[in-house]
């Protein structure tokens, strides 16, 4: 059962009764108005806040497909159903995989199967039905064709930009960047689209825009070349590329793959919220393997992130790793058990050592945005961290410098953080033997 073969945006567009419904659905296909969303293999559901007090309940049975929505629209399917599917196919995590359907969706699916007398009655709510392998293969083929087209289009856009120069690209309005990003989303490349939007947004305002944009062009070009050569890449390299492009791997297939059972120390955690999506990164280090992995959680709309793991605690757990070469992502195969004995923060190294370790990781995975590092004898100053050798690195803009200074007092401290480009974001410090998250 491969759930990463979600539909394509074009397939959803094909279901629209008319162009205006599709346009309205595109406007609604963002996490903002949605809550209680989820999907199984056969059902996608969610609640959409319209102009009224009660949100519309929207359910889609993918086997039909069949739609139901509590809105009064006479169009069928209505814009809410289409928007929900568009949100689902973009794979950004706004419509997450769920084991069991929400109550209202489940009831409807049960009613439907009872009415049609279909044998799939109970299956609608539980993803136990065997999907048609031929259909899945066909969907995968369609998706790959769409992505190929999108990458070719993007490579052309890049060479055009190189020819006319970045100075003229800077004159373009944000809509120009956004348009390119929208085409990438249509081609099922949402991760790349996010990167284009972020760089496009920074180009007009930042003094160092020229080098940033140049480096981004190099990164994007590398992605198009790597995609074209994907047949010759290893599974891990493809895994890292997929993560960058935003082609999600279903948690089901990760779970079945590369699992490691170990005692994991919670090294540190960081939360971000860009107003659209909340993210929680938890860094874990295996006691036996010495490997450091990150677990990512997402929440959009009215969803709530899972409770953060306690920094410095140890978890007995089996983690399944996503395919990738360096800075691996993993997920908990089952609920971890908190070990009685607290973990000890592993000893770290100098900044120079951390920097070369990060360079090695970037050599393996050029898409990795950040590398986990443990530093020893690090002294925190107002805007930088200095190690025992006097080497220094600037603090990340969002680092809470006052909290850091308060707990470390400028004294040499063992510190865990994320090295991002040339900046460090400290997440954990060890003060008087106590592990403290920031």
């Amino acid at each position, binding site marked *: 059962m491969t759930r990463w073969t979600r539909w394509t945006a074009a397939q959803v567009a094909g279901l629209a009764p008319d162009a205006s419904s599709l346009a309205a659905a595109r406007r609604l296909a963002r996490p903002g108005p949605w809550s209680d969303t989820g999907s199984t293999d056969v059902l996608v559901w969610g609640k959409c806040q319209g102009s009224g007090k009660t949100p519309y309940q929207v359910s889609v049975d993918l086997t039909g497909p069949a739609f139901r929505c509590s809105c009064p629209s006479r169009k069928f399917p209505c814009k809410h159903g289409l928007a929900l599917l568009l949100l689902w196919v973009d794979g950004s995590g706004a419509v997450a995989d769920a084991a069991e359907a929400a109550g209202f969706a489940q009831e409807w699916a049960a009613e439907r199967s009872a009415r049609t007398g279909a044998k799939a009655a109970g299956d609608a709510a539980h993803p136990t039905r065997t999907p048609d392998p031929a259909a899945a293969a066909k969907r995968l083929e369609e998706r790959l064709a769409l992505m190929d087209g999108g990458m070719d289009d993007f490579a052309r856009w890049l060479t055009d930009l190189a020819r006319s120069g970045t100075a003229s690209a800077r004159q373009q309005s944000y809509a120009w960047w956004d348009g390119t990003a929208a085409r990438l989303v249509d081609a099922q490349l949402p991760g790349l689209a996010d990167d284009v939007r972020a760089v496009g947004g920074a180009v007009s305002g930042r003094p160092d825009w020229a080098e940033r944009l140049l480096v981004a062009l190099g990164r994007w070009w590398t992605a198009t070349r790597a995609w074209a050569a994907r047949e010759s890449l290893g599974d891990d390299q493809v895994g890292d590329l997929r993560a960058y492009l935003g082609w999600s791997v279903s948690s089901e297939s990760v779970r079945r793959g590369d699992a490691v059972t170990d005692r994991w120390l919670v090294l540190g955690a960081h939360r971000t919220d860009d107003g659209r999506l909340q993210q929680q990164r938890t860094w874990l280090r295996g006691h036996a393997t010495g490997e450091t992995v990150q677990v990512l959680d997402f929440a959009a709309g009215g969803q709530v992130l899972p409770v953060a793991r306690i920094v410095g605690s140890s978890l007995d757990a089996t983690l399944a790793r996503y395919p990738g070469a360096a800075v691996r992502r993993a997920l908990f195969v089952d609920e971890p058990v908190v070990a009685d004995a607290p973990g000890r923060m592993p000893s770290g190294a100098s900044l120079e050592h951390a*920097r070369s370790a990060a360079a090695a990781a970037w050599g393996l995975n050029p898409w990795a945005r950040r590398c986990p590092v443990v530093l020893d004898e690090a002294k925190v100053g107002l805007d930088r961290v200095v190690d025992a050798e006097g080497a*220094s690195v600037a603090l990340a803009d969002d680092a809470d410098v006052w909290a850091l200074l308060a707990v470390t007092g*400028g004294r040499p401290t063992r510190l865990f953080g994320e090295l991002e480009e040339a900046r460090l974001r400290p997440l954990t410090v060890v003060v008087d033997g106590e592990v403290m998250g920031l």
Partner: protein
Amino acid sequence: MTDPMSGVDTWWGEVGNAALLGTARRAVPDLPDLGPAGVRPREVPGPREEALLEAAALGGAALRAGRRLDHAAPPAAAPDETRPVAPRRAVQLLELVLTQPPAGAAQRVGLLVHWLRAADDAGCRVPPVVLPLLLGMATASRELRRPAAAVLGERGRWLAALREEWGWVAEATAGAEARTASRLSGAVPAADDWARLSSTDRAAVLASARAVDAADARALVESTWSTDSARDRRSHLEALRVGLGADDESLLEAALDDRAGTVREVAAELLDALPGSRRAARMAERLRPLVHRTGMLGRGVDVTLPDEPDPAAVRDGLGKPPPRRSARGWWLEQLSAGAPLEVWSELTGADPATTVKRLTDAQQPDVLAGLRRAVRARRDPVWAAALLERGWDATLVPALPREARERVALQRVDATTDRVHELGAVVGAVDPPWSPDFSVALLSRLRASKVGSAMVLATMPHLLAGLHPVSLDPLERWVAEAGGDQALSTNLRNLLQFHSVKRSITEAFR
């Protein structure tokens, strides 16, 4: 090319120029020798655009992986601590008050001040982790500054010195230290140290020194008296209110001749509190000829207004009256406030209660105003009770012993139920903390009232400051039954939370 790296830098600069202008107008520089990276140019060169994009990819990777670290001097570290961190349970309570204030955000400052004072009394400091939050709050609420400054520890002072908004810490710390030293060690600072302190800190030091040793503190005042400004002389005299006694008379008597009117005024006012002083005797002498018994049995009293005072009387305070006051009425009030109260019994031949009744019947407002001042200044319980029987005056209540104080306040509460807006002043007349009996009795009256909700609202600040911990149980029962009245339930719950947290804080430092 001696340094291969400078070659890379030049190349990257040229790549940047080509990118800015576009490959339609600018050629892409050839790859430099990237040494061990082992990158070779293509055998068959591709289109210019692709060469630029490849160069950007290579340069970006080199920039990321090959960046050299800056070197910098390490920051100066914070000094070693001298005080221990507050006990664990107390720290948990502090974190609770800081991050999820029980009893609502409005009561947070009150609880924080309680915590900070308790920590200072226990000789503790706050844990470093709360410093940014605490400093931020004390920057916003001034009343937190001094108590916070006392328990920031070396780390807190070091941290505050790094940020401009926290600049107040340095000033607040100096005062807090001097006061802590004089309170904890019981020592009064040496005259030399005293002379060097700022006016604000002196006032604080004097207040605590006075509580430790009244004579030593007075000696400090006298040591700089001749060189202090009028404003300082006045403020130092004000500080003598604490522990005022007969020994202070000569300084005050001398201050009656001060150059500054403001200083003379305070000196006269303080002497009102010393019925055994020479000035009190002089006032009694001036008063005696003015008071006469009247009626067949001498059960009435008549007081005539004094004549123009002589210079000695002016020196004693019979000066220019306040605006819109008759001069002779004012002088009579001054005489009544300054003379010993016993003079009245002597002149009327009756006990205080009867004397007050006769003066009231004789409509002597100036005399009664003066008597009230004398009672307030001397905290004379007998005369206070006598005056309170004739009419409510919240300012006389503190002169009564605690038990009587609470009794008259309760009586007044019973009499004021229909004037809820006056209730705050009535209850506020009993200084906190209240006795268990009064706390419980007051609560039960509030609860029995039909306007209990409004009464709680009117007395909220006093209930927060005064209630004894034994009232937690009745409060809890009331909360459980307050049900429908939303505002009342909220106020009661806040009150309950406030007092239980406060009690926990006190216990956590034991």
